[in-house]
């Protein structure tokens, strides 16, 4: 083959696979054990009194350790959301779906999840939702124990009461 006939090599695919081992640490271990029992555990900051879930063992605002454990409800309010219609190869849920920030009752930071159980055009800011857990015998120390959130039918929370969390 002459040089003129050789085409440039424009793309070579080289697949890569990554498997990580994650050490949860003390606060997150307690949270994950709670999840395996169907309970959501947060931690309260001793200075600003805000409740973090999942807890990381410290408050990023006050730079102090958090030790007081707090039971957080598995019900909450949608703070904001997006309807995802773009495919990505490692998404956990079929398209389209509502990706939501849920403020769990008793927590001060939002929890990221998805909403199922109602038409997408009914998802709204202020909507009340509750966690849909896997069957009790499938509960495990992983967030996959919460399948998604579903509407509870309770009245919406007015926007003014959510403003500080947006």
């Amino acid at each position, binding site marked *: 083959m002459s040089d003129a006939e050789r085409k440039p090599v*424009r793309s070579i695919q080289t697949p890569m696979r990554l498997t990580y081992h*994650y050490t949860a640490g003390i606060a997150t271990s307690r949270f994950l054990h709670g999840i395996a029992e169907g309970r959501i555990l947060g931690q309260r900051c001793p200075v600003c009194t805000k409740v973090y879930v999942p807890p990381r063992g410290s408050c990023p605002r006050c730079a102090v350790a958090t030790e007081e454990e707090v039971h957080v409800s598995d019900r909450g309010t949608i703070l*904001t959301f997006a309807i995802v*219609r773009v495919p*990505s190869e*490692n998404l956990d*849920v079929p398209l389209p*779906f509502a990706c939501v920030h849920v403020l769990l009752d008793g927590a001060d930071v939002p929890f990221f999840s998805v909403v199922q159980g109602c038409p997408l055009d009914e998802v709204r800011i202020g909507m009340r939702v509750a966690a849909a857990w896997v069957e009790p015998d499938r509960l495990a120390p992983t967030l996959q124990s919460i399948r998604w959130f579903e509407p509870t039918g309770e009245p919406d929370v007015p926007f003014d009461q959510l403003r500080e969390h*947006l």
Partner: protein
Amino acid sequence: MAERCAVIGIGQTHHTARRDDVSIAGLVREAAERALADAGLDWGDIDAVVLGKAPDMFEGVMMPELYLADALGAAGKPLLRVHTAGSVGGSTAVVAANLIQAGLHERVLTVAFEKQSESNAMWALTVKTPLQSAVVAGAGGYFAPLIRSYMQRSGAPEDTGIRVALKDRSNANKNPYAHLREPDLSFETVANSPMLWDPIRFHETCPSSDGACALVLSSERAATGGAHPPAWIHATAMRSEPTQFAGQEKVNPRAGQECAQEVYAKAGITDPRREIDCAEIYVPFSWFEPMWLENLGFAPVGSGWKMTYEGATAPDGDLPVNMSGGVLSSNPIGASGMLRFAEAAMQVRGQAGAHQVDGARTALGHAYGGGSQFFSMWIVRSERP
């Protein structure tokens, strides 16, 4: 007292979806050679090289700074790699400027790049972590809920984002380096384009680009005698904040507000809207223009959209924004922040061609990254500090 520092050379590639005629090394070298030519210098004149790019996981090239050292002429010289997510192009330029301001070097080459055709940013940004399900779907999936929060808080008209997209894409038609050139784009085309991450439409989203940007920075001693006048760096600032904390203002981040306050104070600016002639700000999704106008103090909280709506940010407005077409028209991620800084410098050098703002003497370059946790900014002027 810090040494004075100026931008004396600017280079960039023609940003496009796929540069499979060159390797990553070829791409960065193209931008670097243009910056050196613009400065009237050669590789031997450079004292140190500072490289920036977004996460290694995008292209899967570990330690690109090692692989690119010879292509960037860094052998035998200090070579430093910077990483601050999407803001990295900006913070890379800041680090390079700091080396001159500290008196360590006379001339520093700084380069930033991304080759999205060789990467999979959507995949890398949708990884499943132990404490979060993979439901976010790339950067758009992360930022769409924040845009909805802004819409709810501000009560801005629903077509605000469409107007930003039309303005930026129209500006891109005047920029020969821009990736997207869409002279026939209409309001209806943008409005009727599919929702990717509702409320973000297809035409309100940045493209995936291959591209690189390079700057030659110099001390005051080495700044004169070039073919083009220098752009003098009057102030730089960087800020970060935690990923998540109670009471976090995700729409109007404190780190961004404080970064802006610092860069204005260092440049002696008290009324940014009046004293800054034009701004290149990092807007990957249209609605981030009004959000950042507020965060940067150009408009009161809740009313940034009015500037967009009234045409204040158009090329003939009182504060032209994203004259180059912005991130919405070209997005080689790692380079995107440096392109903002470069456009600000081109404007005050009078070098911006068809997208030049008449009489621009003071300009802001801005970049942000992560989930709005990293900010970098600079103020450049045609006048020496």
